[in-house]
């Protein structure tokens, strides 16, 4: 079963083609890392899955249900809004810049969406939130405001916040790019734990070590295209494309 499937995803910003016919399938339990030089369209690809960007044309399936079939920006799929929103809730998203709600404490950040969006009872949401916060190792910081946390801690809270909606797949948009080098490890550790538990993950990253260790497949994107999809052993040792090779050389030698 594919949790996410895309076919010929295209996205134009006027003349500029940001995504060109991107097709990808992500099976349940799979960890897929997307790598590539900046400006390759990695983030746009991830964000268009979550409706943060509108695609120009192409098809998107979630849980094998077609939710987007666009041509010239018009969606041909007729689906009740509620049903579509419920499907989109299966995707949790973690941003490069954390985007925690600064006016709420850690606990409130994690609780808010389950209570407000899912209509969960406060007590129940609180319990789940506490569990998740403990899971990312911040049990002692429950009642602290995000501004009092380090970047790594904030990102871990952001992960807990996304998990609180009990998604089937987690999208990570360069989760460690905004962090000080010494804080990257703690976030990656949480993500590794998550992968071990069998969470389906789609990760845009520059952490080649993480991709090598955790990913089931690695996607290499270049100038809006998916050039190569292969298991990490293959892509890191013997990539098919010359572009992939030069990119990896420049990244790994840096």
């Amino acid at each position, binding site marked *: 079963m594919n949790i996410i499937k895309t076919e010929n995803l295209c996205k134009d910003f006027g003349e500029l083609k940001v995504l060109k016919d991107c097709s990808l399938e992500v099976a349940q339990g799979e960890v897929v890392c997307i790598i590539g030089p900046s400006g390759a369209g990695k983030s746009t690809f991830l964000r268009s899955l979550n409706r943060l960007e509108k695609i120009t044309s192409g098809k998107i399936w979630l849980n094998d249900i077609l939710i987007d079939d666009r041509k010239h920006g018009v969606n041909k799929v007729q689906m009740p809004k509620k049903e579509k929103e419920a499907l989109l809730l299966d*995707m*949790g998203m973690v941003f490069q*810049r954390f*985007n925690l709600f600064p006016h709420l404490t850690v606990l409130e950040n994690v609780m*808010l969406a389950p209570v407000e*969006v899912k209509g969960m009872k406060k007590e129940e949401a609180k319990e789940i939130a506490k569990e998740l916060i403990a899971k990312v190792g911040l049990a002692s910081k429950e009642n602290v405001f995000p501004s009092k946390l380090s970047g790594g801690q904030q990102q871990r809270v952001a992960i807990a916040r996304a998990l609180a909606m009990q998604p089937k797949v987690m999208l990570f948009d360069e989760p460690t790019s905004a962090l000080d080098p010494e804080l990257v490890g703690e976030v990656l550790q949480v993500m590794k734990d998550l992968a071990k538990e069998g969470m389906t993950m789609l990760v845009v990253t520059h952490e080649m070590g993480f991709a090598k260790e955790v990913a089931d497949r690695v996607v290499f994107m270049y100038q809006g295209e998916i050039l190569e999809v292969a298991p990490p052993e293959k892509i890191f040792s013997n990539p098919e494309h010359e572009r992939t090779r030069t990119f990896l050389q420049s990244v790994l030698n840096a």
Partner: protein
Amino acid sequence: MKRVKKHLKLWITLAVIVVLCIPLIALNPSEKKLRAEIPQDFYKEEVKKSSDVYKDWKIFSTLIVTQQISSNQANRFYVVGIAGNTFGVYMDETTSLSVGGNVVKFVANCTSWIPNLLKGAEITVLLTICSVTVGVLLSIFLALGKMSKIKIIQAFSSGYIFLFRGTPLLMQLFFIYYGLPLINPALSINDRFTAAWIAFSLNTAAYCAEIIRAGIQSIDKGQFEAAKALGFSYAKTMRKIIIPQTYRRLIPPIANEFIMVLKDASLTSIIALQDLSKVTQSIMTSTNDVWIYLPSMAIYLIITGVFTKIFTVLEKKFSIYE
């Protein structure tokens, strides 16, 4: 916080000192002038004599001792002073004989003015609070309207703001109180306060709408994205995530607007609402005493001082998370 407290006290002290000092310096007539103003024969016969003329000593106001000079009921004079310093001479307890008045007269006048001024101040403050409250509530919808993607709503909000910001408040007030009944008697608003309230609310809503729009647009885009990714609807994103974050940023400009409205409330004198300015002006015209402006302005200063303090406390309260 402590620094703000210090400053506030400083301002209030300064206001009080100004109120007390100006009449002291400006009004205290020299003894020479006083003598000139007391009828010569009276001065010779009564004042120039010795202290045995000064009969009934009595406490006049709480501060000053008056000395009753003449025993003749029809022609009674009071000399007012402390410790040998003469401040003024009176025909009776309130009518001054000396031109230009003096400290005692000022203090005495204040005691009779202040109750009236406070009644006016009450209307001014009430009108300001009511108008800004309604105005801010209206302005939230106007601000969201102006950012709306729906063309009609967007056009309405922009038009509203353009109209009410672009025309004088005085004219809007005029139109609502005097103009509407002429168009249709059913539209007449008999209560002056209500008319002023409506005009001020509509006007301040236009200004606050732009303040709130700027506040919302100053929130990081990532907040909208995070909310969307978590499945929040637009309304809930605004209510639970965006607007609470704007509070702290909105308070300084809203406080500004509040103080502007407080002073603009003096415009209501054109519809004869008895606000602080109108009361001051009436006293001025009836007594011809310019010093009425001093206590009046002092009351304005005290009101603004108190509200500035309240807004500072609110701002502090809403910025705990930073």
